[in-house]
């Protein structure tokens, strides 16, 4: 295990303690270290946004708690859902009188716990709306799109719904933006190496050097097929083909794109992929707006990358361009 840690059982706890220690001006906790909220929560008169999920994906999830994005985040153990009670604590603390929107990835444990939390919040007269992120085209065919997993595309939902809330939108309006954003968002990943969950102590799966798996999920869920490592151009083209087939943009459409490292893959290689992606998309008559290249949703030290496309209209574009600030994401 090539990891810097103390007791595997305290990995998340110590990470959270360090995070709060490093960013006390921006982040605080709601009773429990696993319930992270904006330092200025609740923001009165604003719809509050909450997310949650397992640890090991920084900046997802809690990295997007900040101005213009999320108000709070329930944090689970590595690759494990947080508890309904932690979600409820976040919900109570961030509620500013206009309701709370849950936006999170479509994973069984998270769904069940957020649903429990929503029931409990309802008993406390906090109105909650839920939008599930299901952007991973590799996780189910279009006919079963409701079964798809949520991956890096959730960052766009956080950003755009967060901007709408910041601008004073109602809970229904903010939820509508999250839904519209996700309706036009598609992602796919490729993995070149596994990662190690500290408590497990060994890699979550094996993948040989010189192999790759397009479509693999961020916890190592199986993708399309295991095959020998292709060139950056071929990988990029195949990933884009899968996305475009599903999203079906029309020539003339404007897209934003996210080239995301799963962890170990360096920025250098993301830009090599971006070069090819931009070339292919522009050749297809699509324009690109405000590309994001970096680490936005990771699987600790996994090598690999994901590509996310989001089709923009004027409304979504303006929300994407709005300022935002968290310890992990700053846009002016």
């Amino acid at each position: 295990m090539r990891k810097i840690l103390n007791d595997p059982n305290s990995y998340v706890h110590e990470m959270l303690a360090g995070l709060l220690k490093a960013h006390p001006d921006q982040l605080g906790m709601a009773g429990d270290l696993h319930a992270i909220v904006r330092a200025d929560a609740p923001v009165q008169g604003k719809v509050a946004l909450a997310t949650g999920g397992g640890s090991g994906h920084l900046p997802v999830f809690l990295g997007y708690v900040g101005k213009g994005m999320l108000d709070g985040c329930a944090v689970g153990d590595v690759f494990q859902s947080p508890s309904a009670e932690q979600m409820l604590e976040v919900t109570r603390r961030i509620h500013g009188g206009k309701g709370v929107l849950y936006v999170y990835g479509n994973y069984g444990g998270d769904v069940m716990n957020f649903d429990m939390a929503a029931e409990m919040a309802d008993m406390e007269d906090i109105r909650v709306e839920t939008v599930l992120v299901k952007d991973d085209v590799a996780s189910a065919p279009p006919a079963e799109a409701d079964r798809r997993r949520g991956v890096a595309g959730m960052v766009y939902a956080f950003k755009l719904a967060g901007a709408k809330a910041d601008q004073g939108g109602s809970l229904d309006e903010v939820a509508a933006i999250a839904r519209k954003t996700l309706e036009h968002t598609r992602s796919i990943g490729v993995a070149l190496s596994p990662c190690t969950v500290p408590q497990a102590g060994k890699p979550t799966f094996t993948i040989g050097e010189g192999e790759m798996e397009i479509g693999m999920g961020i916890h190592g869920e199986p993708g399309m097929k295991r095959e020998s490592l292709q060139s950056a151009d071929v990988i990029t083209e195949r990933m884009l083909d899968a996305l475009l087939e599903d999203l079906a943009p029309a020539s003339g459409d404007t897209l934003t794109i996210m080239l995301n490292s799963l962890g170990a893959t360096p920025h250098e290689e993301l830009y090599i992929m971006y070069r090819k992606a931009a070339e292919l998309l522009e050749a297809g008559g699509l324009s690109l707006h405000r590309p994001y290249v970096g680490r936005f949703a990771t699987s600790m030290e996994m090598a690999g990358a994901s590509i996310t496309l989001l089709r923009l209209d004027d409304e979504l574009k303006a929300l994407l361009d709005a300022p935002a600030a968290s310890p992990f994401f700053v846009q002016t």
Partner: protein
Amino acid sequence: MAGIGVAEVRSSLARVARALAANKDHLTELDQAMGDGDLGITAGKMAAALESYVEQEPPEDVGTYVAQAGMAVNRAASSSLGTLLATALMRAGKEVRGQHELTPSDLARMLAAADTGVQERGKAKPGDKTIIDVLHPAAETAVAAVAEGAAPEVVAERTLRAARDGRDAVTPLRSKIGRAGWIGERTEGLVDPGCEAGVIILSAILDGFEETA
């Protein structure tokens, strides 16, 4: 036959804790074959949560006692099965809120409420190859046996047999839900880890109530 009070419920929760702890490695192995291999960890966390829960002085209200056991389980173990077991306990407790004693009929109603709650929470249906395939037939059998007026030990025995049969009936099938659902075909012939956990838990509860009742 004396009613079942909070003392009996407390020792049945303690038995569940022991049974889960004892089966950690076994559950891990099953979950490794078709899931993410963490069910042993979950079982351990649930066991520890229940263990310290039963150490506290219980209230007289059995319903609240059971429901709060669910909260304790959720706080400690929020994986799929942890959440579903928490839901089961919360719904079962809610069903008998305010009661200081339980009849066999109450127990059957609690099992049915747990079944319904878990189906609502997890959106799995019988046949999807999940713990529902243990809970659902067990609950139906218990309700029917109690309605028939069967002796408590007969109710318990039939319920447990229904649970085991439910598990075995879906083993040849393909998983449709949760992590195992992503693997599809490869799950055919493998015992669903959640089903196995369901049988372990029901055995721990019913073995004891057989003696008590």
